[in-house]
């Protein structure tokens, strides 16, 4: 099957999937108690009616749903209920690059640190080096973000004054949030690399390479790694998308103006439009990313065909 055909078929699947997600979320959030426009201070009834009318919330449910779909198709999700001066699309487009940068750096660090750990562990399987390497990696996934973050802040920013404790301003401020976010992913990537390398290293062609007299680093680095790294590649898709949500803790602790925090607050505030826009954005981002990953996968592993 050609590449274009593959992509086309995928897109055909993505669209109805998005529709199902949109519908599910639309009704789920309507069903949850509470609504926007609530505060400790009561709004006079007339004002509340006005607000409901302004946002079309007084319409029957099916009509709200249809107009929502119509607008969504044009990528117009309306104004945020909590911040009525801003459009949802605007908010997402402004916050997403921040999360993407944070997540991108974190994944990069995770790969640069995790893959070598996994390789070492695989090559020296069941030795001390294996346990030590995997131990370090697993420590990353066993210490919650919201503990590691404050510890790093306390040590490096508030005692040693080396780095800013928060805010996303300037290159120094990237260090701590990225470090905190990447530790969990280091473990996953290390583990996946180890598994993939173990599998690959047992293959016959590796034995052949060794028999041919190639040095171990060349065998491992040039021949085994190419296929051994494949599980990591396929993990990158869900990892990248999940890192946006998973960065909520980091965004809160380090005051990073990213998308994760926005969406969680939107759920808490019953900001219907922002939640819907966010969920759809997240879902489409994930699916497009998976598509790209699948295509990349086939380039790396000639045994796999586009199916």
């Amino acid at each position: 099957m050609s590449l274009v055909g593959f992509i086309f078929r995928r897109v055909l699947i993505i669209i109805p999937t998005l529709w199902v997600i949109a519908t599910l979320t639309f009704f789920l959030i309507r069903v949850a108690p509470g609504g926007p426009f609530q505060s400790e201070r009561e709004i006079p009834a007339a004002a509340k009616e006005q607000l409901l009318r302004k946002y079309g919330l007084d319409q029957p449910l099916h009509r709200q749903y249809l107009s929502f779909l119509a607008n969504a198709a044009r990528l117009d999700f309306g104004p945020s209920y909590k911040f009525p001066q801003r459009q949802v699309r605007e908010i997402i487009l402004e916050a997403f690059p921040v999360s993407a940068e944070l997540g991108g750096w974190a994944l990069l660090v995770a790969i640069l640190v995790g893959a070598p750990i996994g390789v070492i562990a695989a090559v020296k399987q069941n030795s001390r080096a294996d346990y030590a390497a995997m131990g370090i990696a697993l420590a990353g996934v066993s210490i919650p973000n919201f503990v590691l973050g404050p510890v790093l802040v306390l040590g490096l920013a508030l005692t040693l004054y080396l780095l800013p404790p928060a805010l996303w301003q300037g290159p120094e401020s990237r260090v701590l949030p990225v470090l905190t976010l990447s530790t969990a992913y280091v473990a996953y990537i290390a583990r996946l690399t180890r598994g993939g390398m173990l599998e690959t290293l047992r293959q016959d062609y590796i034995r052949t390479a060794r028999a041919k007299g190639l040095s171990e680093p060349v065998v491992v680095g040039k021949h085994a790694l190419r296929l051994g790294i494949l599980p990591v590649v396929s993990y990158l898709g869900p990892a990248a998308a999940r890192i946006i949500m998973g960065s909520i803790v980091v965004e809160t602790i380090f005051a990073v103006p990213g998308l994760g925090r926005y969406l969680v607050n939107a759920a808490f505030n019953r900001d219907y439009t922002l939640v819907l826009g966010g969920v759809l954005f997240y879902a489409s981002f994930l699916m497009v990313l998976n598509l790209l990953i699948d295509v990349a996968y086939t380039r790396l592993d000639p045994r796999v065909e586009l199916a």
Partner: protein
Amino acid sequence: MTRLAPLVRPFPVRLPGSSWLAAALAVILAAGACAPAREAPVGAAASAARWFGDTSPPPDNVFRFNLGAEPETYDPGLAVGQPDGRVARLLFEGLTREDPQTLEPLPGQAYRWEISPDGRTYTFHLRPGLRWSDDRPVTAHDFRWTWLRVLKPETAARYAGFLYAVVNAEAYNKGELKDENQVGLEAPDDSTFVVRLAAPVPYFLYLTQFYTCLPVPRWAIEKHGNRWTRPGNIVGNGAFTLDYWRQNNRFEVVKNPRYWDAASVKLDRVVGYCIDDLNTSFNLYKAGSFDWCPSGYFPSSFIPYVREYSDYRHGDYQAVYFYSICVKKPPLDHPDVRRALKMSVDRDAIANDLLKGSRRPWGNFAPSGYPGYHNPPGIPYDPPKAREYLARAGFPGGKGFPKISILINTSEDHRRIAEAIQAMWKRELGIPVEVFNQEWGSYLQATTALQYDVARRSWIGDYLDPNTFLSCYVTGDGNNRTGWGDPRYDRMLREAAKELDPAKRFAILREAEILLLDEGPVIPIYHYSTNEMVKPYVRGIYKTPLDIHPLTRVWIDREWERRATRVAARKAEAQGTR
């Protein structure tokens, strides 16, 4: 090859890499916990002041602080919460403006005013030469248009009720009256603004400086609609104009050269960050990224620790933390049950022990500090009496009492207090209590819809008069949220509103408060105080009872260290020569 070759290796003494990591972390932890904050001891005198964290002033005339939450809107007419208010006060100015220390109304856009003998007509005279930031003149028509806009039902302004004292305002806002010309607001000429009230309101001048009453530019709103508050579109008459804004991150304002008092504004720029995590806010203050950490924006657990630093300022705040009781379901509809609950809360233990004295235990509903108002005696802590009441209501020893829940919104301060009170009620009354923690949206919904048993609440005064508290519990008031109502209470508040003599008026309000404390649905717990941190080089910020801080007089004193050394030296000298 046989498989009998020994596979057993000597048991390796091996620590997984993780424990080295843990050790490293422990070292960092220990360093953090033991390391003293970076201090800047001043002078050699024994009374050296200690300052918290980094005390180097910013390189330019910039003032940076934490606004807390992201403002919902920058439109003063629609503003609701404190963050909105802080921003609005930077960009706009009303007829009056607050004194930075006492919050008394001082001349703002109006340089003088007259009040009629019956207290129902106010005539404001605007200063000559007032201009908006886009050079248009500020006129009385702007004020009239603004206040009518607040009252217009389509605007859905949440504080429209503030202006209900104005003739026909309430009817207009509720949509019963369509003609805006019948509302008691007139602008006979460009610089005179006349307000006619239906009944005299002693604190009316305080309302004119409240954000709802700040003037807004009609042409900008008509031109840009919802986007009029963006940098570039926004026009204001305040000391600063909006220069930069990034949601969930920060906003920046710069000095407005067209402000009538621009000569006294010493700052070039003010930056407000929107950081709602208390620890992060505190850390940024320590690292010197903020010059001021307003009250409530650092964790109260740290208060005992920062008390010894001169950054810390503590003052009274017109706000009360209380629990409200929903009286819809038995047995909470029985006044004796409510009395039992109220009297078995040990406020002293909560405020002094749990909160380490950072708040005042408070058994009243209206806060202290209203000149002329004498609070009645508060609810006592009397567990034996409480048990009597409970028995009288039919639940001796707590037997048969259904499980009730305490609803709080997510915050560990609220949770600790709720857990403490849960334990108190269990211990003193023997009743089963659970703590129910919800996020803000659900919490608001539950309290509004009266779907709770006991809920944690707070109320902050909007102006310096006990009415701002007591009026909440009028039957059916939107801020009541308990389902409680008593015609006696309503009557007293109505009488008070009509009473012209301040002493008599306060006496009526006091009676009303006594009734509220006895039978009403409130369990006051503590009296808020302001707990803020200010860097040594900041001048012009004072602690105020409503936590309002006009920033127009703030300036950065780069000579602070020399000044402080001189003062300390002089003090030492004076002590030496005695």
